[in-house]
């Protein structure tokens, strides 16, 4: 990893977190669909990052989100788990894409495969978040609804961002 790429990561993580805490934490559709769009940063991290680095990144991003959202540990647990699962899931759905560098995006992956890759990870993350959030309130069926709708909502936001930020649409 060159210094330049590290710098880009830092910039993008900063933008993701600021957008999430300042704007998207307040964007809730009828108290059911939440948008945890910062997860996109973690999910689309490049292939060639070591698993240790992934875990630490996930932990730190979750920590920052928790501190700003006043939901101590919930996002930390969700993000760390997500980062633990990511390499396996990536191997299973996207296969070996060693020639690609940089963030996973529609530049290199078709939207269907991106969806297959992204949605389950979002579901995992959101289930953990909503489950931990609702401990003590008793298990309610609307958690499942929340998880589903939030995952779809987040995915839409991520796709929109991708459409804006990636210029070429060459797909494989």
């Amino acid at each position, binding site marked *: 990893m060159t210094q330049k790429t590290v710098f880009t990561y830092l910039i993008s993580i900063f933008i993701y977190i600021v957008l999430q805490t300042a704007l998207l934490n307040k964007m809730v559709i009828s108290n059911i669909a939440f948008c945890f769009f910062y997860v996109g940063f973690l999910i689309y991290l490049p292939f060639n990052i070591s698993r240790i680095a992934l*875990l630490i990144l996930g932990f730190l991003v979750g920590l920052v989100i928790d501190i700003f959202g006043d939901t101590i*540990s919930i996002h930390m647990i969700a993000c760390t788990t997500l980062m633990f699962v990511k390499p396996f899931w990536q191997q299973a759905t996207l296969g070996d894409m060693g020639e690609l560098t940089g963030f996973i995006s529609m530049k290199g992956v078709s939207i269907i495969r991106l969806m297959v890759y992204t949605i389950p990870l979002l579901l995992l993350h959101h289930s953990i978040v909503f489950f931990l959030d609702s*401990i003590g309130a008793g298990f309610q069926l609307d958690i499942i609804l929340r998880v589903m709708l939030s995952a779809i909502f987040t995915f839409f936001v991520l796709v929109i961002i991708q459409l804006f930020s990636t210029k070429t649409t060459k797909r494989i």
Partner: protein
Amino acid sequence: MRGLLRFIYKYRAFELFILLLVISIWLLVRNNRYYNVSYLSTSNAIVANANQKIFNTEKYFSLSEVNEMLAIENALLREQLTNYLYSSGYSKFGINDSLLDRYEIIPAMVERNSTAKKNNLILLDKGSNHGIERGMGVIGPNGVVGQVKFVSKNFSTAVSLLHTDVRVSSMLTRDNTIGTTQWEGGDISLAKLKYVPRHVPLAEGDTVVTSGYNSVFPKGITIGYVKNINVNINESFYDIDVELATSFHKVSMTYIVKDRLQTEIDSLITISEE
């Protein structure tokens, strides 16, 4: 050994994952009251019991802090109460002005105390830095304690009620008869109530409170309770023993009463006496 190290190295990502997870769950349990409770209930009884014991022990270390907090809160409540008692007398006239916020209460701890002498003094841990001035009244949780005599920066000395020169303008709650309470030495729980005329009906157990006629104490602070009533045929006043409400040998927490209008009253009295 090498095999073990290789094993640890091989699964380093998983181990880090577990470590991070443990850290976050620890934070979760530690920072969230709700999770803390459910964590306790899911733990077995021994763990819960041990936690309870630890918590109970920890409580003692914060006692002084808690005490101080309670003292401040008490002072606030007392201030409200004195101002309320004071103002309730005026309320029937519909007066609403600075008189209603006349007294300020400052909590102070007793640093040194004596009861054995003829003229006893109390050292308090508040001084001119805290707004204490000479002549302010000192009251305790149960009743009157004394009056501030000397003030330094951080400390002040109060003459306790157990001082033969101290006279407190008193009043019997039964019919608002005015008298003067004075300690004459001897038993530290007994003082004399003087100048109560013989025609006044009296009974043992009557409450003696401050009259509020001088600006040292607010009206209605308990001084003590009538214990013995002696009648001397040659005198026109009763000889009354008052059991003091404050136990002077164990007084530890006091409140200093600041009368915000004292200078005004004093200057008025000086003018009228000239």
